[in-house]
């Protein structure tokens, strides 16, 4: 990837296109800190200016304010030196400021051209689709965005849909483009293609604001970078004058360790034991065979594999959500085959699910309610079937505090408005505070920032030291290799092999993940 710092004109001579001074945003009395606190920021013609920060740092809020989607509380915004006040995204667009949102803001049932027409300021009864398609074609050629204007959006890949989002705003010939974590849905190679496009747009004289929390991307595409932390800027610098270590320190304060040392597994007792178990849904796969997985107390078993190879079905079987098609599931020397999820919970099986919003929490319920979702029947949280508000509050408060979840209010905030990372913090707290003997964790750190990932890993190791068994299901081989005592690899519903975590050979694991049968010896 070519970066601007080693070629092309000097950038800080570029005109300032968009400038914010003393920008603040806050819901007084709700949050303990302002979402944005006296922020200064600018973007110049011809540059890619990256906003870097962990989840909840306020990156998205800045972009939303600059583009006119949110109102600011304080501060001033200037476009080419002229003071502006946007009341809607349309006014922002009229001043040449366009935003590409993190979630795709597309109509799946529409074609690419129809999606772009949604944002046109055309007469009510006109229908300029032919002209729109032609103009899309020209933009596609100018910036190398490969998209067919007549294609239906729901038939496109995530990378192509992202390009439609960019086309949508390019159509208005903006001078400043704000992109909020545009790579979150993309594969690494799609992301690289996007960077080429961003560079082409910057070379065209546009100012690009790129929001990210991934270090690799920052260095791949930026000219300047501004680090944001809890709503405050940690300074702006040229990318050439900094390095990864420094930025990481400024962003997160700490770094992620590679390997977590720990003592030998101390117990012999089996916490989770599946005997020739075929999870429901896998029995119809060709040459399906029973899974025999034995995890001791105080052991972390990593389950690696490309997702969709039966991990979900296995998890459903060992948490009691779906009874297995055949075989047995034992938890702490009790045969739990065919028992209900509630009995699994009471036996001490904690579940940190992959689909957090769907099955991890009840989105419409409040924070405190979600925190006691699995304990509300028990003392001290209820007495004679009546919930005890005080007890629940103080418990929820402890969990929120311990896991650093950003939660405006325990009883006012519905969980659906929380970010994915904060929801995960609540789930981690709810599932682990009782120090359960068995923890089934699926992608537990996905969407968390580096600091929270480290806390989660430390939490798992601490629980391990207390005798909890952990089944860690993840696609992230680094996480599996840092954390696991033993590593099992799953492919097409089968366990391809199990190796010790310490000194595990990444190549062998990769081979098994692809369905190979090489031995680990």
């Amino acid at each position: 990837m070519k970066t601007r710092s080693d070629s092309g004109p000097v950038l800080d001579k570029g005109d300032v296109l968009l400038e914010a001074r003393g920008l603040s945003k806050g819901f007084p009395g709700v949050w303990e800190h302002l979402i944005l606190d006296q922020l200064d920021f600018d973007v110049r013609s011809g540059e890619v200016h990256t906003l870097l920060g962990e989840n909840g740092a306020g990156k998205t809020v800045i972009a939303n304010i600059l583009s006119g989607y949110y109102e600011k509380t304080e501060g001033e915004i200037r476009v080419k030196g002229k003071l502006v006040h946007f009341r809607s995204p349309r006014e922002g667009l009229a001043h040449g400021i366009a935003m590409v949102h993190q979630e795709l803001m597309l109509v799946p049932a529409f074609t690419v051209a129809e999606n772009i027409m949604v944002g046109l300021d055309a007469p009510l009864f006109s229908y300029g689709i032919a002209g729109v398609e032609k103009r899309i074609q020209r933009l596609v050629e100018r910036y190398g965005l490969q998209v067919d204007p007549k294609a239906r959006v729901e038939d496109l890949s995530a990378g192509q849909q992202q390009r439609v989002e960019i086309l949508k705003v390019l159509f208005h010939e903006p001078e400043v483009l704000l992109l909020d974590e545009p790579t979150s849905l993309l594969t690494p190679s799609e992301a690289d293609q996007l960077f080429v496009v961003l560079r082409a747009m910057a070379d065209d004289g546009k100012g690009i604001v790129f929001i990210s929390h991934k270090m690799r991307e920052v260095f791949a595409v930026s000219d300047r970078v501004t680090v944001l932390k809890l709503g405050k800027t940690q300074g702006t610098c040229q990318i050439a004058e900094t390095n990864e270590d420094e930025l990481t320190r400024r962003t997160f304060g700490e770094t992620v360790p590679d390997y977590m040392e720990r003592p030998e597994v101390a117990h012999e007792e089996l916490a989770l034991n599946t005997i020739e178990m075929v999870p429901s849904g896998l029995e119809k796969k060709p040459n399906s065979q029973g899974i025999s997985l034995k995890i001791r107390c105080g052991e972390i078993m990593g389950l690696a594999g490309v997702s969709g190879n039966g991990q979900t079905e296995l998890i459903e079987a060992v948490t009691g959500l779906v009874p297995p098609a055949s075989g047995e599931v034992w938890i702490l020397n009790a045969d739990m085959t065919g028992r209900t999820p509630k009995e699994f919970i009471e036996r001490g099986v904690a579940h940190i699910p992959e689909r957090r919003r769907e099955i991890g929490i009840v989105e419409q319920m409040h924070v405190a309610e979600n925190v006691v979702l699995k304990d509300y029947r028990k003392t001290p949280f209820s007495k004679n079937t009546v919930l005890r508000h005080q007890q629940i509050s103080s418990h929820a408060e402890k969990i929120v505090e311990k896991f650093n979840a950003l939660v405006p209010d325990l009883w006012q905030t519905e969980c659906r408005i929380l970010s994915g990372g904060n929801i995960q913090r609540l789930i981690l707290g709810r599932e682990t505070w009782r120090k359960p003997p068995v923890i089934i964790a699926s992608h537990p750190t996905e969407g968390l920032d580096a600091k929270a990932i480290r806390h989660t890993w430390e939490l798992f190791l601490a629980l391990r030291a207390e005798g909890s068994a952990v089944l860690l299901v993840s696609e992230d081989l680094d996480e599996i290799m840092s954390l696991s005592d033993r590593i099992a690899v799953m492919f097409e519903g089968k366990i391809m092999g199990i190796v010790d975590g310490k000194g595990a050979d990444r190549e062998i694991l990769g081979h098994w993940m692809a369905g190979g049968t090489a031995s680990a010896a």
Partner: protein
Amino acid sequence: MELTHLWGILFISLHAMVPITLAAIGETIEESAGLFNIGLEGILLFGALAGALGAQASGSALVGLLTGMGVGALIGLVFGTISTSLRGSQLISGVGINLLALGFVALMLSVMGAPGFHSVAREVQVPLIPLGVGNLSPLVPITVAVAIGVWWLLRRTQLGIWIRAVGENPAAADVAGIRVNRVRLGAAVAAGVLAGLAGAYLSIDWFGAVTKEITAGRGFIALAIVVFSGLNPLLALLGGFIFGFFDGLATWVATYPGIKDIIPWQFVAMMPYVVTLAVVAGMIGRVRFPSALGVPYLRE
């Protein structure tokens, strides 16, 4: 059967098609924008009463039709406001419209004299177009034109793109600068206008009277047609004609000497409703509706 009988059934079918189709097309606009109004039946009833009163007060059928449309627009506006800026339940406000109409119209009919029935003088009814084989209401060609016009509006105009975008993904429409609630409110009013016109047609054109049962579930049949059509106004026209045919057949059987003695008219009168059930049962799940149908939009 003689040819005149066939003409007779065709004319009755076309006349029965009008109210169902108009209401269904209105609902199509509204559902395209993401609002689900179960209160069509009530708007039809209000429109029937308003049409009759308007026509009698002014002595003009045209004013009667306009009065029906105006009252429909008003109810659409109330429903639209509840469903958008007030973020109320669309289901409950729709049911509320139906119940209000039932009670209000029954009350008005009692107040106006004969409880349950109010006839409209021939002079203020919509004049029919005499054709060689029978008399046709001008609302029949108007309904066909409305179907084509709304199809064009939804599928071939910038406004149609906006209406459908608001129903499919209001957040995306909002970001694009569309006033989501305003578009939805407009769609609700348009739906009210068409349902009000359909109601006025019942009282001052087709039946020449107002009864409290005048709508006879046609608002709900219209909802079924919307399902059948998959929000395509041209298919709604076709569906309206099919239901109209059974409706017309029932009327014809019930009144034709000779036949009414052989087939019990109650049996034939059941037909439109049975067909409704069958069609809805068969179409559900096959037709794609806007993603945000029935969901109030709230910017977060």
